[in-house]
């Protein structure tokens, strides 16, 4: 065995909830751990036990392991050690997996609300732990743009461990993989590990979706997994916009279609403006493609985290265009997004009236009804029911409103 040194993780004064590992595999001398930790008196023993257990698991008999710990949680320490080990010996294929957290075993549904999706940089575990407390509809563990190219392997393992260990308090667990073809390689770290939705960035064709779909199916078969995993392609180029309907309808697993404007505006050679004229066509296209395919149209992120009023206006505008969700890059944006997507009291009243009128007509066996001069047909009722459902979910309406009525 070589005395090659490998490392993983982060160190420095500003590092929190993370650790730095240096590992040397040796021919003799047993396992030597050198631990410096700010939680040493509380969890020093537990960290040592983790190291010993991992060495046993990977059949490592002789190694020097240096750990600089800044209060990393066990799932992070394990991911960092495994990364250091695999960087040292790329031949190792075994995976050190913790059992799936019982509190993380909740399921998702294709039609669930996806008003807010909170991006979390995939190699920054400190942001994961409390993300769900801000109650975004979805959290995204990102393996793509927020992860440095030489840290992709590290992020894959920390995201894998987080999917199994971290309680996101009911938020749907999404992972954004890398652009294809690299993204296909991310899937084996994600698919068997309790993910709900996979985001396909810079999606340009139905073929992109099908390749992801196929790889997911292959992994699910091998790992004997039968939960549903949904897809959310992100349109981020002119070509993607033009092909948006074929993308939206490429797989039955697609739950939503999103647009990413930073890359899109760069692709058409312009810049994002507050007004957004430059992307009106693309956004409308995505909305129409999604609706035509029967899935949710989802808007891009709002990137000024200090401007909450700007965010609110942007969401109201997006809702007006037909979007049903917005990307968040800061937890404080979540509440504003939900408030802005919530139906107005006027909308709720109107929806109630439609549903009541329809139900009464239905009971009487009437086919067509109207309120005033407006005819109430199936699509109108369906939209009203959706508004009602949304109002109930955001606590603007009691679930028993109809009976109470």
């Amino acid at each position, binding site marked *: 065995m070589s005395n090659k040194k490998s490392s993983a993780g982060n160190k420095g004064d500003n590092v929190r909830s993370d650790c730095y590992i240096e590992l040397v595999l040796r021919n003799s001398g047993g396992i030597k751990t050198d631990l410096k*930790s700010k939680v040493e*008196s509380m*969890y020093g023993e*537990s960290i040592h036990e983790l190291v010993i257990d991992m060495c046993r698991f990977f059949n490592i008999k002789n190694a020097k392991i240096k750990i600089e710990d800044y209060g990393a*949680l066990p799932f992070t320490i394990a991911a960092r050690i495994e990364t250091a080990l695999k960087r040292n010996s790329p031949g190792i294929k075994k995976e050190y997996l913790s059992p799936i957290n019982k509190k993380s075993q909740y399921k998702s549904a294709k039609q669930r609300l996806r008003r807010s999706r909170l991006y979390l940089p995939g190699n920054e575990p400190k942001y994961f732990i409390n993300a769900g407390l801000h109650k975004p509809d979805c959290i995204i563990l990102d393996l793509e743009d927020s992860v440095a190219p030489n840290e992709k392997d590290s992020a894959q393992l920390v995201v894998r461990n987080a999917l199994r260990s971290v309680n996101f308090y009911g938020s749907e667990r999404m992972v954004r993989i890398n652009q294809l073809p690299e993204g296909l390689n991310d899937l084996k770290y994600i698919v068997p590990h309790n993910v709900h939705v996979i985001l396909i960035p810079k999606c340009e064709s139905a073929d992109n979706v099908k390749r992801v779909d196929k790889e997911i199916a292959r992994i699910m078969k091998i790992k004997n997994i039968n939960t549903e995993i949904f897809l959310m392609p992100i349109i981020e180029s002119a070509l993607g916009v033009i092909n948006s309907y074929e993308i939206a309808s490429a797989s039955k697993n697609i739950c939503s279609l999103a647009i990413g404007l930073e890359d899109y505006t760069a692709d058409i050679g312009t810049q994002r403006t507050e007004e957004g004229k430059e992307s009106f066509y693309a956004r409308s296209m995505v909305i129409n493609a999604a609706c035509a395919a029967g899935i949710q149209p989802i808007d891009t992120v709002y990137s000024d985290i200090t401007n909450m009023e700007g965010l609110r206006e942007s969401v109201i505008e997006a809702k007006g265009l037909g979007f049903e969700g917005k990307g968040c890059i800061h937890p404080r944006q979540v509440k504003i997004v939900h408030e802005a997507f919530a139906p107005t009291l006027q909308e709720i009243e109107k929806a109630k009236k439609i549903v009541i009128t329809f139900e009464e007509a239905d009971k009487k066996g009437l086919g067509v009804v109207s309120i005033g001069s407006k005819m109430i047909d199936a699509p109108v009722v369906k939209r009203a029911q959706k508004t009602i459902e949304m109002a109930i979910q955001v606590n603007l309406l009691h679930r028993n409103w109809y009976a109470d009525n």
Partner: protein
Amino acid sequence: MTEDQIVYNTKQFNNITIKQFYKMKLVKNAAGRLVPILVNGKKQIPFKGVNKHKPTGHKADPPIRSCLDYPWDGNKVQKNLREALKNAGLKNGMTISTHHHLRNGDAVTNLLFDTIKKMGIKNIMWFPSASFPVHNHLIKYLEDGTIHHIEGSMNGPLGGFASLGKMNGTGVLRSHGGRYQAVQDGEIHIDIAVIAAPQSDPFGNANGIDGPAACGLLGFALVDSEYADKVIVVTDSLVPFPCVPWQIQGNNVDFVVEVESLGDSSKIVSGTTQVTKSPDRLLIAEYVADFIEAAGIMKDSFSLQAGAGGTNLAFAVFLKERMKEKNVKARFMRGGSTKYLVEMLEDGLTDFILDGQTFDLEGVRSMRENPNHVNTSPFTSYNFHGKGNFASMVDVAVLGATEVDINFNGNVVTHSDGYLLHGIGGWQNCLYSKCTILAIPSFRDRIPVIVDKVTTLVGPGELIDVIITERGIAINPKRKDLFNSVKNSKLPIKSIRAIKKEVYEICGGKPAKPNIDKNKVIAIIKWVDGTVLDSVFQVNVVNVESTSKVGSTFT
């Protein structure tokens, strides 16, 4: 003299061999905590329970002075600090006090001990109202015996120094109110008080609202000015008589010294105070504001106490929105004042600010200009021996803590690794408010804040009503009224045990107990009535050389 009965008094440090005061006899107090009955040669009364101890007799009295002994022209200015100390009769083993209104910008305390060192004086007991990182400068004087020990907060490295058992005597930590009480009880006799004053006249009238080192007020120095044998005012802004307002009265002052600078004004008050940007802290702050509203506390003429921690500032901002929306006006707000409280005063959301210390320039300006921004002191606000005090009249106080346990007991002085790192401040005193809320994260990195049992008991759980964390709100079962008032709200009310359980799950199990030596008390924690509530023990340092498995901790 047996080892556990070393008797000395503070005046005689130099006459005894400072060997070990550690081996103290410990008894279990009413809170079930082991505390010494003799500390620094003085008998101690173990904590008897909240509101169970009531000293009788007479207060300590300062010596009689006569105007005949002071210059008729009122000019008490001395050549320099050394001269003033000499004329004040500085001797080995004396007790010297300072205040902490200059916070981390304080240059006066360091100058004071540099001067004492040069004069060859030893074994001073330093009695500050609080210490700051800038006072790390004094560690060398603790090491060389210029300072014998500290009775006051020991922050950061000073606390670390004491935690490792390196301080000669035993530290005594008191609340702001407890410091006043200890002087009035005669438990502490201040030989010389050195009062840094941003503005003074030659007679010794002084205040904190003007001058280059303006810090707002000087309330923490009030007891020192009234009870010390000798009082020295140090200023960098000497104005002709009269200096008004006279927050410190010249009639209590012996000497006045002019120095070039009291310190770094940018560290005395911050230019601007910032609300936390942490989304998790903001979430906690929002829950606090929601709770105060839902519990019906936020109503016309209510009162609150707000600290200056990032979370506490944020809660004030959220509360302000709610008060505006509901058109509610407070009668008074207590606190460390900041621009956020000042804005509420100026926007008409409160009639008064009753200010204990001023944290930013806006606070200083408001105190200078606005008669409704009133300066207070530990006497008005917290003193156990006052005929009442303000703390118990406050409707809601929002405070922090380093640990809280499942019995709602709070710790603010040590961390979970056993190190003494903070002072008590006014925290214990504020627990007497009608509703005491601790706004804290449930864990920091991997350090549980909600625990089975606090490392050090600083606040008895029966006085702590609500714990607000990012993972939920726990209401003390004693406060059924509060529970009933918010039970129909959307607030995430949980039991404290449920929050603790979740925190332990996240952090990877129950934390091991700190590695401390239960035979070596390095400091005691006084309750507001002067009894001993708990002990802080020496932290054992693991020798890095002796084991290849374990390294040293970060401190």
